[in-house]
């Protein structure tokens, strides 16, 4: 009998692949100035925001699609509904939500997570936030955690939002940043005052439920000098047989000696085009930590960027990407060392199987101001079969003498010697391979809160099957 390769199964997505019906109010599919005006009007926005949207739309129309990443020819914007309003307003009590919405988040475990270990939760369903709540203790510390649209209507916060909104990610950055600028809806605003340290994380969860729709939430977080925050972002959607689009934006401002950890599990369905943009800037002594898991999606473009603008600011990026059948996930990160004595550490893992394509793409730029800065990049790719693909494209642009930049990358499959070692100690081949793959993902899962590590392990539930011997 011919020896058959041991297979590693795809992610079990049944936990996320469900729907309790569609939202009630949708705008027409497509992208026109009228649709953009209608979104703005529904939100009763200030005039400057409407003008920002219209200008972004113009940029979107005149900007070419990127020619270096996965094809997005299957994404027809004329078929994408850019605004879908759920059949509820925003609540601060789960029981006040309509059953379909409440059941969705119940099944995803969000209310339970809130009770167990979170200081606050925001939940977005299609284009609008449907739930937002924060513990009194956090409120008393002066922390603001609200829907960004709510904050935009608050005279206390509107000027700050106007000052910061889409400055880190300008609409000119790329085509889908421009699209986001035109049709953004929902998302969170977080303000952590000076020297305030929140011991428990805040979390936003984004659920795109509507078929053929787009989700364009905007997250704006400002962590003032000396403050400390852990923010968690989760995303999921049921699978449909037509394309959905996610083009969110995350802008993070980290003050002097402040610290922000931003953890994400992007777990979209396999009909999703995930064209998300995330960016942070750190002042002197500030630090940003990214923990990023990219699963799901038909096509993914995701490169969280850290601009180390202040002396001795730091960045760490820990990421994992799993590309299975039908997926082309182009992920990685960008770092700009723009001040003296900055440092960055990047560690990524990617797994390809079942004909999936995974690309690690990064850029490290050291400007002439980056005296005595350092950056290390390590990326490891694991191929689980011979019909998948895994590429590594790391770019380094160094314009400063006194820097230390190191880069290491490896691509390969599970080594026979490792399997042999484990098998010689009485472990079956299937178990051995599972252990090795779990170990491969371990640097990421250990950075997540326990509950999310469990979720991630669930996501990469790697069932070993197939004949051995």
């Amino acid at each position, binding site marked *: 009998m011919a020896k058959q390769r041991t297979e590693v199964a795809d992610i079990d997505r049944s936990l996320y692949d469900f729907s309790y019906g569609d939202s009630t109010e949708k705008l027409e599919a497509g992208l026109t100035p009228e649709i953009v005006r209608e979104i703005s009007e529904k939100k009763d926005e200030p005039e400057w925001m409407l003008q920002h949207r219209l200008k972004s739309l113009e940029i979107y129309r005149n900007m070419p699609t990127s020619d270096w990443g996965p094809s997005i020819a*299957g994404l027809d914007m004329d078929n994408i509904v850019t605004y879908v309003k759920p059949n509820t307003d925003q609540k601060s009590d789960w029981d006040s939500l309509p059953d379909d919405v409440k059941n969705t988040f119940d099944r995803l475990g969000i209310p339970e997570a809130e009770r167990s270990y979170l200081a606050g939760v925001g939940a977005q369903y299609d284009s609008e936030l449907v739930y937002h709540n924060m513990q009194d203790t956090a409120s008393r510390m002066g922390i603001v955690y609200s829907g960004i649209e709510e904050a935009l209507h608050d005279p206390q916060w509107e000027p700050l939002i106007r000052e910061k909104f889409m400055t880190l990610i300008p609409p000119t950055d790329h085509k889908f940043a421009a699209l986001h600028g035109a049709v953004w809806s929902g998302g969170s605003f977080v303000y952590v005052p000076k020297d305030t340290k929140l011991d428990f994380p805040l979390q936003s969860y984004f659920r795109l439920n509507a078929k053929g729709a787009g989700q364009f939430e905007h997250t704006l977080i400002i962590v003032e000098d000396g403050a400390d925050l852990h923010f968690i972002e989760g995303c999921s959607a049921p699978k449909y047989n037509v394309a959905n689009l996610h083009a969110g934006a995350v802008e993070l401002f980290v003050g002097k000696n402040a610290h922000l950890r931003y953890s994400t599990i992007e777990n979209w369905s396999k009909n999703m085009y995930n064209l998300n943009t995330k960016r942070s800037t750190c002042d002197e002594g500030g630090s940003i930590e990214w923990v990023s898991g990219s699963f799901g999606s038909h096509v993914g473009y995701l490169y969280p960027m850290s601009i180390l603008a202040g002396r001795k600011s730091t960045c760490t990026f820990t990421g994992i990407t799993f590309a299975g059948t*039908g997926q082309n996930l182009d992920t990685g990160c960008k770092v700009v060392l723009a001040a003296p004595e900055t440092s960055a550490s990047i560690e990524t893992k990617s797994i390809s199987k079942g004909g999936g394509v995974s690309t690690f793409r990064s850029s490290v730029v050291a400007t002439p101001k980056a005296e005595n800065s350092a950056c290390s990049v390590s990326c490891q790719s694991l191929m689980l079969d011979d019909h998948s693909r895994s590429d*590594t*494209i790391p770019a*380094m642009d160094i314009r400063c003498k006194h820097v*230390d930049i190191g*880069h290491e990358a490896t691509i390969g499959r599970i080594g026979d010697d490792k399997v042999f070692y484990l098998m010689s100690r009485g472990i079956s081949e299937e178990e051995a391979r599972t252990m090795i793959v779990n170990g491969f993902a371990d640097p990421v899962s250990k950075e997540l809160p326990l509950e999310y590590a469990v979720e991630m392990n669930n996501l990469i539930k790697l069932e070993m099957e197939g004949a051995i011997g």
Partner: protein
Amino acid sequence: MGADVLNNVNAMPAPTWHRLGMNETAVELPEGLSFAAQVEVEAAAELIGEAGAFDAAVAALQERVDAARAAGPADTRAILKAVDPDVDPADLDIPALSTYEHKAARQEMANNVAEAFECGMGEQATAWLAEAAGKGAATVFAPAAGKHGQATVRIAGVDGAANVAAIDVVAPAGATFDLTVSLDSPAAGSGVVGVVLRVFAGENAHVNVTSVHTLDETWMALDDTGIVCDEGAFVTVRHRMLGAGKSYTGLATDLRGDLSRVDVDTRYLAAGQDVRDFNYIVRHRGKKTRCNIDANGALMGESKKVLRGTIDLVRGCKGAEGTERETVLLVDERVENKTIPVILCDEDDVAGNHGATIGHVAADQLFYLKCRGLSQEAAEGLFATATLEETALAVEDETVRAGVGRLAGRLGIPYQEVEG
């Protein structure tokens, strides 16, 4: 005389963000260049082969490649389905390939050695160099099977002209061949000095190529190479890009035969406002193929350098290993260094590794040297001196050594004549 600007030069197979300015470059040629075709060839007469030898060798290899494909199982991967022109781009079960992944899949399906052949600088630059060298004027070196041969080609700058050599090396089974190419500018002037080199290394053949640039800063160097390796063939390439105001170096290798191997050992220096632009592509197609790309350089003054290195592990190259490493010493404040070491992997049973170290002399090394009375500047100077002296040691040709000495004097780098 042809194009004033060569576009898409040294293009990476898999591009990235355009704003980084690394994907490719445009070469602006000096105005009013004539074509000089003044090339000095030093080789035994029996080594000179016939025009068309390279194409004939590729055609013969194609027959075996076709036979092997016919004997193998059909390839039914989803990635290849994505290339089908009738496929619906909205089909969510087929990965949405990028442009370069699409091209790679098409190339895999075609399995055509001649069509896949490339030189590192890209089609337009290769064609221009061939034209500058004179149509059909390629010097063909073809040692006999199992025999050894060696040749030196000297290309000196001709003021106001493009002086280019076209060279084919066709090494049949078991042959060994050493080729030294010198791009030098013993006389004052300005212009382009270039070489376009095609190498076919037959079964178990061993070809050593050494290319040394010792041009002054008024000259531009274009160094373009394409290599095809048959089973068990081994090609070593030593690039010593020490001079020229602007130098563009492209090298593409098709490791087509099982157990074939290429080693690329590059040393470069750049000073003043020099530009060094490299593009290395190694495509592993045969089983258990090997490549090692090792680049070391020092950037001084306001010089700029880009090094693109792509290891492409094509499906079917089971057991292949590709390694790439670069160490860059940034000597002065205003230098610009760009490095992009790429691994493309379409096969699981492979090992691809790359690493880069960019910066100044390591603290422990510096401490060691300082303990012996050397300043940091002196330690960095040692690196440049060592690069020049190593080149002189490695090359027997007196003209090339003289060029290295002249360059050292111009750059103000301490240099002692060394015996090879």
